[in-house]
């Protein structure tokens, strides 16, 4: 048994002329809380569908828990709990009958564990799906994904329709599972919730992985945002030594804002020392993660990670 829960190698999946994902490489270690981020239509769900054996890779390979996701899909799913992005359940099921039915299909008692999860997520198991709100259905979907105690959880935007309190409860449950050695593959288009849960994150954009790193490394690689305010009383430097190392967002007469490349802080500080008498104010800060994530969404022409 390898230490890798999910291993995707050069995975390409296209839908005829439509793009799915292209040349995706991803490794998720066992026990990890892994965030899979990307805007809608980026390729998150396609990747998940390949992992669950719904789609056959056009090229490349995907394995999970050392099993091929296409050829050994049904064996793999004994140890996988999954929730789709747009969860639909059979309307005639109640929470309790769903747990019994799924347990019967899986050949495993899911009722006891399901009841405990339902208490934690505050779901009444006697209600029929047809009478459930979207949030209740989502909770039931999560309970059905968790109640057989899978080794790998593949969750496609699982917090959809959950209120903040329940999102928090879900994160607690997932952390607990991770501590027991289970792997969580958590897809989302919101960095905030991934940041609150995951140690490692991959960002997919237009079918391509543009970042695969830890949340802290991601922040570190992003450089610094700088904001310089000049004093009106003193003459401004006309051309600066910062031009090669700063991507300027705006450079009006008395307010310069831009993004400093990672590793160029000493040069900025030297510039500040040289011109400090002319400066009215200066701000140097790491971008917050949401801003950082938005940069990945920006429509850059080459699709590479922002610097």
């Amino acid at each position: 048994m390898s230490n890798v829960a999910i291993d995707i190698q050069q995975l390409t999946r296209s839908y005829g002329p439509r793009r799915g994902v292209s040349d995706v490489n991803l490794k998720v270690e066992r026990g990890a809380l892994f965030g899979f981020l990307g805007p809608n239509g980026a390729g998150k769900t396609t990747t998940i569908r390949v992992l669950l054996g719904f789609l056959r890779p056009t090229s490349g390979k995907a394995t999970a828990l050392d099993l091929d996701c296409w050829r050994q899909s049904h064996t793999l799913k004994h140890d996988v709990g999954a929730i789709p992005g747009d969860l639909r359940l059979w309307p005639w099921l109640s929470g309790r009958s769903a747990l019994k039915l799924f347990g019967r299909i899986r050949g495993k008692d899911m009722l006891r564990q399901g009841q405990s999860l339902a208490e934690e997520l505050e779901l009444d198991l006697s209600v029929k799906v047809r009478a459930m709100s979207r949030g209740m259905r989502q909770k039931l979907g999560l309970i059905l994904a968790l109640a057989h105690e899978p080794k790998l959880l593949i969750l496609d935007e699982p917090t959809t329709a959950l209120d903040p309190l329940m999102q928090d409860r879900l994160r607690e449950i997932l952390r607990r599972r991770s501590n027991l050695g289970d792997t969580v593959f958590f897809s989302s288009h919101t960095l905030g919730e991934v940041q609150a849960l995951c140690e490692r994150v991959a960002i997919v954009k237009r079918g391509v992985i543009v970042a695969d790193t830890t949340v802290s490394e991601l922040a570190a690689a992003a450089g610094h945002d700088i904001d310089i305010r000049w004093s009106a009383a003193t003459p401004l430097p006309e051309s600066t030594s910062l031009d090669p190392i700063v991507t300027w967002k705006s450079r009006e007469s008395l307010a310069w804002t831009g993004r400093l490349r990672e590793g160029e802080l000493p040069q900025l500080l030297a510039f500040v020392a040289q011109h400090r008498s002319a400066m009215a104010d200066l701000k140097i800060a790491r971008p917050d993660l949401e801003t950082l994530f938005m940069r990945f969404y920006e429509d850059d022409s080459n699709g590479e990670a922002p610097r």
Partner: protein
Amino acid sequence: MNFGPFNLGLVQRALREILGITLVFAGVLATISGLLAYALPRIQARFMQRQFIPPGVKQFRDAILGLDSTGAGVSEVAFAIAWSHPIVLALLSAHAIMVCTRVLAGEVERGTVDVLLALPVSRLRLLASETLAWLITAGVVLAAVYAGSYVGAQFIKPEFRPDWAKLFMVLCNLSLVYAVIGCAALLVAHYTDRRVRAVLAVIVITIFSLLINFLHTLDPALEFTKQLAFLSFLDYYKPIGMLLSGEWPWKDMGILAGACVVLWTGTAVILSRRDITTT
């Protein structure tokens, strides 16, 4: 929980979805079959008393029966008509189409396929389980036709009642016709993601099949239908022949069974190879 090639949980799930509608179909079929068994022998007896059937009527009747009925008695003709009556065939076809297009097209269309396929069951086992559930309900509706005939026949003169063993042969042959329609529906529903498309496709195939058979029997000289007649599943279902001779139509039943095997295997191949996505 698996039992041979079936997953009992999936069989239970399928039955939960189709048993209600099956009981409705069974009730309607039993009633219609009973009424036909009660009324048709009387009508046929009146025809025979006149000792003259206009040639057009006989030709039309033979077209429905799929065979020349000259020399047949009241009971044979009446029950052959009852068991190849368009309403009975249409209701049986509707049941097969309704049940067999649920998976996969129906599940894709209502978005539940993601949950279904996330379960640890191979696609082949899923198909086998769905097929078993369908066959159980098929047994119910087909038994209803037989039971309806039996009950209806209790209210007619004993001499007009059919030979029940021969009628059982007809039931077996009809079951295979029903199975071919169901297997065709399975195949189309696993090829397309839209249930309406699957239903329409099978309805078109069924109507084409009925029409070809009807025209071919109505006018055997018609070249166009003569060449296509072998494609009609009704070409392999002739109740009057069985009721007259009492012989099992092994060849016809073999062809229908073969068609079922080919269609079901085709479905399995499509299902095991195809990509499944709700978007």
